[in-house]
Structures are given as C-alpha cells and as structure tokens.
C-alpha cells in the first residue's frame, strides 16, 4: 500500500498543505409522516397541502414524537457502528425566519440519540476509517420561494417538520475523493437500512462542509470555514477544492483565515462569505419543555438490531467468500442495495450449474451499459433478474454463444422477453452437432484449398480466417469451441 502516491496535497512554492474536511450530512428520514405531526412527507406535492396545525405552529399546538422516526435514527446509528444513547433530549434552536413557523427548530443539542461511530471507506490505496461524532434528529424548515414575485416571498410549509438526521463526521476526511466515497458509503448504508432514500436531487441528502488546511505533517488544525447546504457530491468536491486553495493562498500571503460560514456559488464555482463568527446566530438552545427526554430501553434497541439487514461491508465480505469475486467486483455489486438485490436474484435464479463470474461480467458490462444509455436505475431494469439468469444459463450450457447472446439480450429489452423464446423463434440456437459442423468445415476447406496448404506450411494466422468463414457460413450460430476443435483436426 503506497499512501504517498494518492495523497491529496495543495502545493505552493516550498510548502505542501493538507486539507482537513468534516461533514455535517442532513439526511431526510424515510417516513410516511413528519417528526412531530401526522402530515405526509411525500415529495413534490402542491405547496402547503401537507401542513398540519402543528407544522404551521398554531397557538396551543404541541409536538408529539413520531416513534417510527426514532426507530429509523437508531437503525441508522446501528448501521454506523455507533453508540445508541438510551436517553436523549430534544432542544429548541431559536431563530426567526419566515419559513420557520415556530420561531425555533426542534433539534438535539447536548444529548443526541446516537453517539460516536465509524464508517469504512474503500479507497484505491486501501481502506480508510472515518469517525462519526454523532447523529441527531431535528425538524426541517419550510421553503422560502423568492422568485415568484418581485415584491413578495412565498413560503411553502410542506417540508416544515419533516424529520432529518444530522450525521456529523469527525474531521477525518482528507480529499474530495474521500468525501465522494464517504457520502456514497453513507448513502449506501442508509439505503440498505431503508432509513433514507438518499435522493440528492430531491434534497433528501445535503451537507454542510467544514474545510481547513494545515502544513503537511502538522498536528494542529487550521481555522475552519463551513460551507453551507451543498446538495451534490460534485459541488461538494468543487467547493472543497476552491475553499482549500483560497485558504492556502491566504496563508501564503501571510494573512489569517476568518472562521466563518460560506456559501458555494455553483455558477461561479467559488465560495463566498455568508456571515462571520461575530455575526453568528445565538440560537439560545434549551430543552424543549413540550417534550420529555426521550428514553429508549435496551430491549427496544435489541429488537431494532435484530431487524438490521446485511449491510454493504458484510455483504461484500460474503460475496468475496461465497462467490469468489474480486474485492473490486464485490464493491461494485454491493455499493447500491438495488444492484446487490438484482445480482442475488440472478444468482438464485441461475440454479445449480451456475457461472457467477459470467453473470457478474454481464451485469457490470451489458446490463450497466443499457441502463446507462437509457438513464435508468437498476430497479427499473427492462430485463428482469429471472430472464437475465436464463440468458446467462443459455451461454453457460452452450445453447448460444456469447456473441449471439448479445443479440438476444438486445431483443429481450423490449418487454422483458424470455431469451429461450427468442432463441427458438429466431433460430439462434448454437450449432453443436459435430457431424453438421464437420460437413460445413469440409466444404470450406475444399473451397479454400490454397489457404489450407499455406496454413499447413506454417502460416498459422490463417486459422482465424477459417474460424471466421465457418462462423459466417453458420450464420454465427456455430459453437466456436467445436469449430476450433474440428478445424485443428482437419487442417
């Protein structure tokens, strides 16, 4: 393992700088209803159609904890190998904004529901452990819409009160690539658990990115800046790159870095100061007197533990052991729960005499290519796992060649057709009758006497010519292995 080669450093004249990154990821809890009310959380509804009296903070309305959201947070904590706190407290974070109806956000400040944990990243140069500081539950705010009217701001409260998990990492990340891997890993774990759909376009996953730089080898942290609310991995990477270079430039110029909150302008690809430390809000956190401290029993946690599915790290290990896959292949297959599901279904449907390597090659090759070109997720695959398994088996048992299989596959896409039927209807079955093939080959040798003699005299390249002729004559259906054998015998 050569770490130096892949180290992400910022170079200036004589100095090299290391970048230190910590993330606060806001993941929307996958739940039917909100954290403290029964309103729906469905994305994309008409504005203000999913708002209860509690969400709009009407006088005398009180929050009631949604137990399902608590379970989701604890499950996520288990998935992050984290300590589950049996007692946690909901606090009020006080600030005024038009889309914050209560005038405070209910969050967890001193006593979060989940404590320290860790996540393992698979980097090209080996594994990397990233510490989790905590996970806490909080309500989302509504949405202010400033561009519908020149004079007024509109407020949509559909999102107000939706449960979020804020997952705070330790400052363990050192490069944009690690950030990429970290977000993908978190997303993968939560999708396995069914606790967050990880949909970044719909805002289900966004992050505040803390960036600081320090001279390579230094043990002390530099002054950090927080880049607020970045909603794609690409933007996170761009923002980090810009911000780290900005900070290095300041140091090189002998200036100091102000601890501040910054915004990432995606159009200009730069970060801009939003507010300084002095202007930072005083949120006046205090325990929400409308909610008693949240206490969960050991039994409650144990029951949730029993409910945890096989997670990506374990699945990967099993794939390597059980199916003799390479770590690389296993990584691809486990990275997304739907890919893993598809793969496992294909394996199950292939039956006893299965060729797993072949299936993996076909999934990561042909299937991914078709999904890519059509812009589909694997869950929307036009070819079902069942028919995909049949196709692999047809190759494996010699019914069709790999080449014919590609033709069959393309025909399967339209309406998830059974490959056996396609082979039958189109007469694509491989010719494996030695007698028929011998006759065919005899004919070709006869027609190409001179070339046959040249081959015998040592022009071995011509073997390929004969194979090609034979395949052509059979309409591509001849069993290539048999053709090879017969040709060797006859020439």
């Amino acid at each position, binding site marked *: 393992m050569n770490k130096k080669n892949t180290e992400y450093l910022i170079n200036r004249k004589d100095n090299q700088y290391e970048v230190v990154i910590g993330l606060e990821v806001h993941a929307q809890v996958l739940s039917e209803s909100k954290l403290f009310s029964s309103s729906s959380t469905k994305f994309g509804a008409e504005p203000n159609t999913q708002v209860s*009296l509690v969400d709009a903070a009407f006088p005398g309305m009180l929050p009631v904890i949604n137990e399902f959201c608590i379970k989701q947070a604890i499950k996520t904590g288990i998935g992050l190998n984290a300590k589950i706190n049996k007692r946690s407290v909901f606090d009020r974070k006080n600030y005024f904004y038009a889309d914050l109806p209560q005038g405070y956000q209910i969050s967890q400040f001193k006593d979060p529901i989940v404590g320290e944990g860790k996540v393992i990243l698979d980097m090209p140069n080996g594994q990397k452990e990233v510490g989790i500081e905590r996970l806490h539950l909080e309500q989302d705010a509504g949405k202010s819409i400033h561009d519908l009217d020149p004079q007024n701001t509109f407020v949509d409260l559909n999102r107000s009160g939706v449960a979020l998990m804020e997952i705070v990492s330790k400052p363990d990340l050192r490069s944009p690539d690690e950030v990429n891997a970290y977000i993908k890993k978190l997303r993968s774990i939560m999708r396995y658990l069914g606790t967050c759909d990880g949909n970044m376009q719909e805002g289900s996953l966004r992050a505040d990115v803390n960036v600081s730089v320090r001279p390579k080898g230094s043990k002390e942290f530099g002054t950090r800046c927080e880049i607020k609310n970045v909603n794609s991995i690409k933007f996170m990477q761009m923002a980090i790159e810009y911000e780290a270079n900005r900070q290095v430039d300041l140091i090189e110029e002998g200036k100091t870095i102000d601890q501040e909150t910054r915004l990432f302008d995606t159009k200009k690809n730069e970060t801009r100061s939003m507010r300084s430390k002095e202007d930072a809000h005083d949120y006046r956190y205090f325990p929400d007197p409308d909610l008693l401290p949240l206490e969960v029993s050991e039994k409650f946690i144990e029951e949730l533990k029993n409910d945890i599915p096989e997670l990506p790290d374990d699945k990967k290990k099993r794939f390597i052991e059980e199916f003799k896959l390479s770590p690389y292949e296993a990584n691809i297959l486990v990275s997304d729960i739907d890919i893993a599901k598809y793969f496992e279904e294909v394996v199950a449907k292939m039956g006893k005499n299965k060729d797993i390597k072949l299936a993996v090659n076909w999934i990561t090759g042909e299937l991914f290519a078709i999904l890519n070109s059509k812009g589909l997720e694997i869950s929307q695959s036009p070819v079902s796992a069942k028919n995909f398994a049949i196709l692999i088996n047809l190759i494996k048992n010699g019914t069709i060649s790999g080449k014919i299989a590609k033709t069959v596959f393309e025909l399967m896409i339209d309406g998830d057709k059974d490959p056996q039927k396609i082979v039958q209807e189109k007469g694509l079955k491989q010719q494996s009758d030695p007698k028929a093939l011998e006759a065919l080959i005899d004919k070709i040798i006869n027609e190409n006497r001179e070339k046959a003699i040249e081959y015998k005299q040592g022009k071995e390249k011509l073997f390929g010519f004969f194979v090609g002729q034979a395949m052509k004559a059979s309409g591509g259906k001849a069993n290539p292995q048999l053709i090879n054998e017969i040709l060797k015998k006859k020439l």
Partner: protein
Amino acid sequence: MLDITKQSLTELVENIKNKKLSSTDVTKAFIQRSEKSSELNAYITDDFTLALDKAKKFDQNPNLDLKLPGIPMAVKDLFCTKNVKTTAGSKILNNFVPTYESTVTENIWNEGAILLGKLNCDEFAMGSSNETSHFGNVQNPIDKNLVPGGSSGGSASAVAGQLTPITIGTDTGGSIRQPASFTGIVGLKPTYGSCSRYGIVAFASSLDQAGPMAQNVKDCALLQEVISTYDPKDSTSINFKRNHYSKELTKNIKGKKIGIPKEYRVDGMPKEIEDLWQKGIQYVKDCGAETIDISLPHTSYALPTYYIVAPAEASSNLARYDGVKYGYRAKGENLIDMYEKTRSEGFGAEVQRRIMIGTYVLSSGYYDAYYLKAQKVRKLIKNDFDEAYKKVDAILTPSTPSSAFKIGEKTNDPVSMYLNDIFTVPVNLAGLPGISIPAGHDTKGYPLGLQIIGKAFDEQNILNIAFAMEEKINFKNKITDWWIK
C-alpha cells in the same frame, strides 16, 4: 326558587336533571346578568346568541346523564375554541379564530356544557392583576377599581360576579389561585400533566396548567373530574388513575397531617394574613387533622427561579407570533422590519419585558448562570416538597401575601407585582396541585384565601381538606352588585 345565577353549579346541575330548570332558563339568566355587567369587563368575546341556540337544542333532546347537562360556561380566553375568536388578551391575536378546540374545553362541551364566551385575562397570562390585557382592566366585583388578580382575572370576576356558574383558568405561577383569593372564590391548580395543554395558548410550557375556578369546593371537584383526562396529543400529559373527584369528595380528614412551612412567614407580611393562617390552622385541627411544622428551605429562591424559567420558555413560545402566518401583522420595509414592527406593536409592555428577560437568560454566556442554575434550584425546590411529604399529607399556606389592590397601584413596580406570586409559584415549579379557598376578610372587607398544597396526583386529598375547611370557615362573599346596570 332562588335567583338562577346565585345557584352553585351543583345546584344547577341538580335542577336541570330534575327538570326544575331548563338549559334555556339557566343560559338566559347568565346571559342577561352578563349583559348587565359590562362594567366588569370580564368578557373579551361573547357568544350569547349561539349559546342560547345550543341551550334550546339541548332542551329539545336533553341528555341528563352528562356531568354538565346544558350548563352555560364562559372560559378564559387562553383556551382555543373552534370558530370563536381566541386572543390570549393580546393585540397580536386580536383577529385570531381557531379552527380547533382545546382538549380541556372539548372535554367540557362533551359533558353537555355550552360556551357563553371568552373571558378577559392578562396578555398571554403574564400578569397578576389583569392590567396587561389589551382589552382593558377587569373590575373585581368586590369593589370598584379593585383588581381581580391575574392572570385569570376575567374568570375570577365572572365567577364571583355570577356571570358564569363556574369557569376554567390557567395557572403558570398562581394565575388561578391568586385571583380566586382576590375575589373570594375557589381555584384549583392541578398537578402538572393532569389536564392537557393541547390547544391552550402557551406561556411557559413546563409550568402551565389549566384548572377549575368555582364558587365552592364541590363545584370545583366536579369540573376537575371533567377536565382532567390523559391526552396523547400533549407529550407531558400523564396517564394516571384519576379519581371521581366529586363523588369521592369527603369532609372526613381525621388524622391527616398538615404541614405548616415556616419559610412562608415572609418579611413584611401583613398581620391579617398571619392571623388568617393561624385561623386556618385551627380549622384543620377542628376537622380532626394534625398540623406539623415543616421546612421548605429553598422557598425564598422560588420567585427568582420562576422569573427565569417562565420568561425563558415564554420568549421561545411567543416567537411564533411573527406576523407571517396569522394574527396581527404590521407593514414593514422587509422581513426583519415587519417582524420588529409587528412584535413591538402587537405585544404589550409586560410581554415585551418578559420576552427580553427570557431572551437574555438563554443567551450564550448567560445560559449557565441563569437558566441552568434556575433549573437546578427548581430541582431543589421540588426536593423540599418531596422531603416534606415524607412527614405530611398536605401543606397549608396563605394564598397571597395581601388582599386585592387598587387598579394602577402596582403598574409601575413590576417587582412588587411579581411578589404577589410568592406563595403560589413554588407549587408550579414543583408541578404539584394547589387549591385556594376563601377563608376570611381583611379589615377593608376584601376576601383572603388559604392555599392547600398536595402531593402530585393527590387532588382528591386537597379537595377533601378544602371541603372540610370550607364548612368550618363558612365564608360569605360580600358582593353588592355595584356594577349592575
């Protein structure tokens, strides 16, 4: 038959059940008296027309199995009432009509009662004299230009003045018991978690509690029985076995041990309060109970603790009144300007003072010194009571350090105003039940109350003690109907 409005709730229920009176008779009588009593300014909003319709409807098909069959009742304007304006005594909710009903009032209507209207109160229940209401002072029926106490001043005035047979108030630091004491009526602050806070405009969430205000202990017990229910919509509502308070009410308190806390003998307390207390001690002894001297050592810290905790919670609870969603909105140049104008025009001076105190004590750098320290002291105050209750079944104290004062007398002296709550505030901080019963008059002829504090969930016990004492005291309120037009 006796004038309808002079009858107690128990008598009215009896007479309706015996068909001696109809709901319409009763409702009409209270409406008429209320209409003649505008000078008391007890109502913010009346609902008389609809009340009479409801009474007639009730009479057409009376369900006499209910606990409050066809009984008209006005309630404090802090309870959200569906389709009836709910202001909390504030300009900022001047135009607010809820689409929902508080659990406590829902319970009352479900037992057959009929809403007469919404009663005046201090703005957001912040006050001890009803003088902070946006809708003006309330007169105490005892005497002209006398405050009825607060914050449930309109409620107290309406019961004492017989504009409603009974009512409900809310008590955050004494807002039921102090006005009850000032107007010569009975007021119960139940155990925290006994009555749902759902649909009650919040002042200080960890202290607020609704409770009955009545002419006598039996009426009070009956209403407590109706309003105290477990409510899953309030996370602080407690699911405990509730008594049938009125049915189980008994004057037999023989052998009960009543604690007399020495710390309640405060400096400068008028002699007539001390005398009243001594009389109270004699009464409980006459009833066969035993009195025991006890100590509640942290009592003197209760008031400062309360005036940190309550404003802190209030500053946050009142943040929602920002002009964005409902209520009063001032025009502004931008969002911040709109906030500032809405809140400085919409809130009165006392509310603004408490928001500022609350914001200050929660600020970073001050939180530990004020809010956190106050929470620790609160725990010590609770521990005092826990210790005391190892020795006694209940505690007897005066309700207030003085009788009612004149309107305007303490307006410019908030601290002197806050001192009014000195005997009631510890009870809220400890989450305990407390009842104030009228026990005598001062030299001016103004009523004075005694407070009985119980163990948590032990409402039945303090109601019983109050019931027994009530008979011995035989209090008669001196009401001359001076305001009637």
